[in-house]
């Protein structure tokens, strides 16, 4: 124990003697370790955020869409484009299924709309949905002011709008928007309510830049809706499987899907979304490890190089140590510990740097990040490991010197 402590403190004093050189040598290791920590923190942050967002969607619900929600790699977009649209009638037909409690039929236009009043306008990025009162439950909208759409609004075909917090802030700063008028394209709508702020989705996209109007007035402002998304609530979380089976059977019948053909629509549950996300996270992790392994390799070679230089420079010192009674194993250990300590310092630096990036991402850019302990441990272990591995050869060279020859070196 004493000898290990001595060896480590010996190594530290050597590194202190060459601070700039040590620093430059460590760059590769620092980059490798910081990449792992930063990337894994971001991936972990996203994962936690996705899990949380999905949990908010509730356990008993699922979605039906024409388009896939998330996809990676090669996607045949033509295949999705050729599919028939989901119609409001198809959605209404699901209401009678035994294990379906609510069906939210939503009409969305691709892209965003500009909402405006006489005084102000939003950017043309507001997501406008044509919806039913069920929209509120399917999307977990909490009403902050006023009220949500009602059955009466739909029956009477009222031109009313329920708006997100960002829209309210932009168009009606410091005012109560309820009862005020705004226009979508040229059509006037009366504001009936404002949603409680929901924050950002996955830390990037604001979820408060939306507006919901009754689905049966959607065409008056934005043209006839072609495609619809369906958000379906099962009678209970345990019945989701049955509700999906019933929905699939009904939609296949209504959309004339031949037996044996695959569904011409997509079903998403929380599980399927998080599965997709996890496959993305795995790709990111693999890429990160690739970068990290490369950086550690480069860093390790840098360390080997500097250790070989160090052995050459300190040949005399090695000879003296041997003359004073250092066994060869002791010399070997000295240099291996030195390169390991050097690399471990690089690992610590990399972890700090990576953690700083992760914290900055969260605090400054509001990107979710969470530093996983295993990434820190992995970085430190692999950094030290590369120092150990690449330190062996120079250390072996040092330990094989002949003391008499070594002391004679200038």
């Amino acid at each position, binding site marked *: 124990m004493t000898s290990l402590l001595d060896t480590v403190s010996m190594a530290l004093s050597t590194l202190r003697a060459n601070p700039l050189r040590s620093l430059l040598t460590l760059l590769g290791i620092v980059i490798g370790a910081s990449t792992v920590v930063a990337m894994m923190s971001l991936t972990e942050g996203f994962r936690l955020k996705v899990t949380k967002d999905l949990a908010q969607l509730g356990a008993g619900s699922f979605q039906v869409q024409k388009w896939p929600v998330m996809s990676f790699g090669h996607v045949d977009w033509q295949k999705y484009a050729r599919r028939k649209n989901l119609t409001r009638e198809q959605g209404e037909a699901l209401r009678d299924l035994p294990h379906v409690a609510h069906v939210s039929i939503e009409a969305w236009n691709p892209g965003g709309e500009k909402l405006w009043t006489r005084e102000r306008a939003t950017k043309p990025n507001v997501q406008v949905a044509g919806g039913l009162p069920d929209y509120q439950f399917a999307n977990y909208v909490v009403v902050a002011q006023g009220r949500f759409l009602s059955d009466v609004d739909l029956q009477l075909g009222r031109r009313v709008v329920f708006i997100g917090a960002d829209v309210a802030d932009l168009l009606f700063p410091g005012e109560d928007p309820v009862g005020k008028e705004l226009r979508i394209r040229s059509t006037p709508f009366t504001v009936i309510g404002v949603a409680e702020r929901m924050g950002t989705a996955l830390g990037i996209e604001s979820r408060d830049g939306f507006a919901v109007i009754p689905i049966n007035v959607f065409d008056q402002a934005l043209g006839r809706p072609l495609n619809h998304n369906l958000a379906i609530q099962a009678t209970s979380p345990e019945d989701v499987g049955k509700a999906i089976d019933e929905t699939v059977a009904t939609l296949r019948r209504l959309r004339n899907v031949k037996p044996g053909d695959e569904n011409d629509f997509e079903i998403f549950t929380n599980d399927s979304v998080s599965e997709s996300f996890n496959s993305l996270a795995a790709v990111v992790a693999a890429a990160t490890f690739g970068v990290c392994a490369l950086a550690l390799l480069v860093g390790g070679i840098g360390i080997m190089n500097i250790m070989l230089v160090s052995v050459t420079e300190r040949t005399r010192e090695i000879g*003296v140590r041997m003359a004073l*009674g250092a*066994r060869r194993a002791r010399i070997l250990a000295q240099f291996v510990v030195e390169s390991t300590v050097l690399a471990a310092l690089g690992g610590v630096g990399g972890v700090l740097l990576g953690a700083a990036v992760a914290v900055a991402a969260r605090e400054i850019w509001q990107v979710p990040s969470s530093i996983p302990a295993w990434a820190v441990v992995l970085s430190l272990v692999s950094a030290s490991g590369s120092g150990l591995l690449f330190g062996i050869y120079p250390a072996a060279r040092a330990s094989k010197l002949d003391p008499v020859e070594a002391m004679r070196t200038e």
Partner: protein
Amino acid sequence: MTPDGALLSLDGISRLYQVGSEVVRALDGVSFEVQRGEWLAVVGQSGSGKSTLMNIIGCLDTPSGGTYRVNGHDVRGMADDALADLRNREIGFVFQTFQLLPRSSALANVELPLVYRGLPRRERRLRAEAALRAVGLGDRMHHRPNELSGGQRQRVAIARALVGEPSLLLADEPTGNLDSATGEEIIRLFEELHSRGHTLLLVTHEPRLAARCPRAIRLMDGRIVADGPGREVAAFGTAPVVTA
């Protein structure tokens, strides 16, 4: 261990080097003994084999033939680790060029042999401090070698050689890199160590230094050509000698 016998015992020591296709005989049948408490000089021109002899006595090298015992240990066939341990316990080296570690303080340099002996930190510190005080450097313990004069550096080296209480202090041209006044100081220190009972072996090409030693051995072409009181052996070198 034979505490009654000679500290060093060399019997028919030879050392051959292969240089290209030729075999060079650096030492050829060298035999002598050194008793505890002796102060002995080995003199000779460069190329006489005294460095080779010093390396063998210091257990840095092993003989090609003959028997060498240090404090009862026969070094023949010893593995590197055993030789390292033997050096650590039995031999204290003092070199012409001091051979201090430049980045370490005087104290850390002196502690080094005890580090390799595996002594705990505290004991090392105490013994190193005592050794530095013994050579008159009690007030220079935390200086680095480049902050010390030549004489002070050699004192640090002597303290390092003594700190492990070795059987033998082995000095190679200890005054070679010092001016004559400083060299004199170091010789006085050796005299003092000798009077305190240490066994000293000096390797030198300077007859003046050999003349100060009670006993000297003269080497020529790898053989002992004179062994006797330092003054006589030193004079032997200055007089024109015809070797038979």
